[in-house]
């Protein structure tokens, strides 16, 4: 029972945060000078002041800001993100929905890559502290932190895409011959296209996570229960992977949750570089067109994903921390 109460509390705490995000985004966006009309009008010499006024009224831009926000919020409560300002006037949710899977796929894949590579690296570096391996990874981590990810993307495109001609450098699948491919060939084609974007979006996380794993492991390895485990005569392997690592991973769960906004934020850049039709690209084009509804819709989706990520991290933490677990048992 305690667990559910705790969960309920956490969920309720998300609500004001969520509305705070929408409030700030909405006002920042609308208070900034310029509006969608001026862009459309600039390209249309026949636009008269009256027509402009009519368009403004049609989009609801003639109302005071708090009325606009109220309307938008009312729509949101009814799970309606409104319609795009672009000439196609499509529903915002439809626009986002068709692009969301690609972005999530790439982010999940890079998250997996980060965990699979960074944790063993960090453990090894901690176990052999000050060894050559430790020093080399430390230097690599510093370089990975300092290298702009989009530049690494350019270098990899240059190397693997152009010089070696091994990997495609743009889009999600080949344009020519894709229709005549078998399912297996299509999967292969997709995979080849995803290698560089996934790797590039994982670089920052790889550096961060191997670093966190290392310092967390170093912390744990100093504890008395590790000495006890060793004194019992357990093999070093068991001491490290069963006793130390499990405890060292605890703080990493929280960091994993916190890294969600960074990953999604990176999508804007990677999707632009690799020409991937995901949410990041939609975000980018809606910024350029000052398409408020699409922009707000994107921010809502991203902040919901972020809040969910944080919540999942908290739940994960509660689930693996014996103190919380025993707390639940007592409550039952």
């Amino acid at each position, binding site marked *: 029972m305690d667990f559910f109460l705790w969960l309920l509390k956490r969920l309720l705490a998300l609500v*004001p*945060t969520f509305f*705070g*995000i929408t409030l*700030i*985004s909405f006002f*920042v*966006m609308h208070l*900034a*000078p*310029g509006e969608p009309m001026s862009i459309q009008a600039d390209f249309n010499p026949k636009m008269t002041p009256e027509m402009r006024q009519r368009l403004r009224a049609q989009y609801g831009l003639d109302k005071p800001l708090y009325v606009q926000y109220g309307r938008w919020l009312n729509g949101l409560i009814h799970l309606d993100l409104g319609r795009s300002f672009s000439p196609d006037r499509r529903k915002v949710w439809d626009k986002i929905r068709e692009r969301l899977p690609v972005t999530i796929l790439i982010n999940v894949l890079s998250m997996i890559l980060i965990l699979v590579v960074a944790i063993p690296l960090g453990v090894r570096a901690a176990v052999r*502290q*000050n060894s050559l391996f*430790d*020093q080399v990874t*430390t230097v690599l981590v*510093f*370089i990975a*932190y*300092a*290298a*702009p*990810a*989009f*530049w*690494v993307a*350019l*270098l990899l*495109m*240059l190397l693997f895409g*152009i010089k070696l001609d091994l990997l495609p450098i743009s889009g999600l699948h080949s344009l020519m011959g894709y229709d005549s491919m078998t399912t297996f060939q299509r999967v292969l084609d997709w995979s080849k296209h995803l290698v560089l974007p996934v790797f590039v979006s994982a670089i920052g996380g790889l550096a961060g996570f191997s670093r966190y794993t290392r310092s967390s492991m*170093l912390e744990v390895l100093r504890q008395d229960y590790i000495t006890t485990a060793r004194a019992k005569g357990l093999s070093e392997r068991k001491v490290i992977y069963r006793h130390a690592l499990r405890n060292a991973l605890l703080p990493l769960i929280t960091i994993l949750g*916190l890294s969600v*906004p*960074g990953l*999604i*934020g*990176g999508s*804007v*850049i990677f999707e*632009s*570089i690799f020409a991937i039709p995901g949410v990041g690209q939609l*975000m*980018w084009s809606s*910024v*350029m067109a*000052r398409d408020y509804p699409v*922009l707000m819709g*994107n*921010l809502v989706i*991203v*902040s919901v994903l*972020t*809040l969910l990520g*944080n919540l999942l991290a908290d739940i994960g933490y509660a689930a693996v921390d014996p103190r919380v677990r025993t707390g639940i048992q007592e409550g039952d």
Partner: protein
Amino acid sequence: MKGGSIEGKRRSIGAFCQNPLAIIGLLIVLALALIAIFAPLIAPYDPQAIDTFHILEAPSLLHPCGTDSLGRDCLSRLIYGARISLLVGFVAVGIATVVGTFLGALAGFYGGFVDGLIMRFVDIMLCFPAIFLIMAVIAFLEPSIWNIMIVIGLTGWMGVARLVRAEFLSLRKRDFVLAAKISGASDFDILFSEILPNAIAPILVSATLGIGGAILTESALSFLGIGVQPPTPSWGNMLTEGKNNLEIAWWLSVFPGLAILITVLGYNLLGEGLRDFLDPRKD
């Protein structure tokens, strides 16, 4: 760089000098500052000078980093780009540090409702990808170097605020604060003349590390075309040119990125070195 050697380290210039990575960082930072200040003396060419007879030339003795699609000398543009990067880094971090310190100090000192309000605001700001907000704001304002510095600063103060709050929380009950209160000092004096000087070390470390982050953000924005606008040379917008000529001119993609890498590396190494040096508790 961390580990055995720091056991028994003392707060002395000697201790700092024993950390080779921190020294490398310091040297990089100093060298870059000199390059930025004396750019007109060092740069072999005018960074804006267009030379249509030498377009997209590979690196040579005349042009060590090659030329771009307008025949401008890349090395000269890189040297002038250092000015932009450092300016953006320093001003943006300055704004973030001032805002973060002020809000963090209020939250930590007063606690209660003020603390709750400010920290909730911090949570909200941390919750969406900063780049989304930056993009939204920058795209609506005229993209100019000043707007970029302000926006990067205003989206990067949360870390400092948390840090300063924690410091103030632990310091506000100390005797010297009590003494200042009894002697009738105003809250403002206590906050900024009594407590703040004791919290300078972690603020300095976080500001140093923040400069690297701000330079990275500026380069990403300029790369996307919503940062520093051409023809003003910035490492980020030079990389845009690199991307557009990726297949024919590798040097346009390699050197500006290298410049960013070295600069950010320098500030990060210096920041980490300062952290070890100023705060021996942390390992």
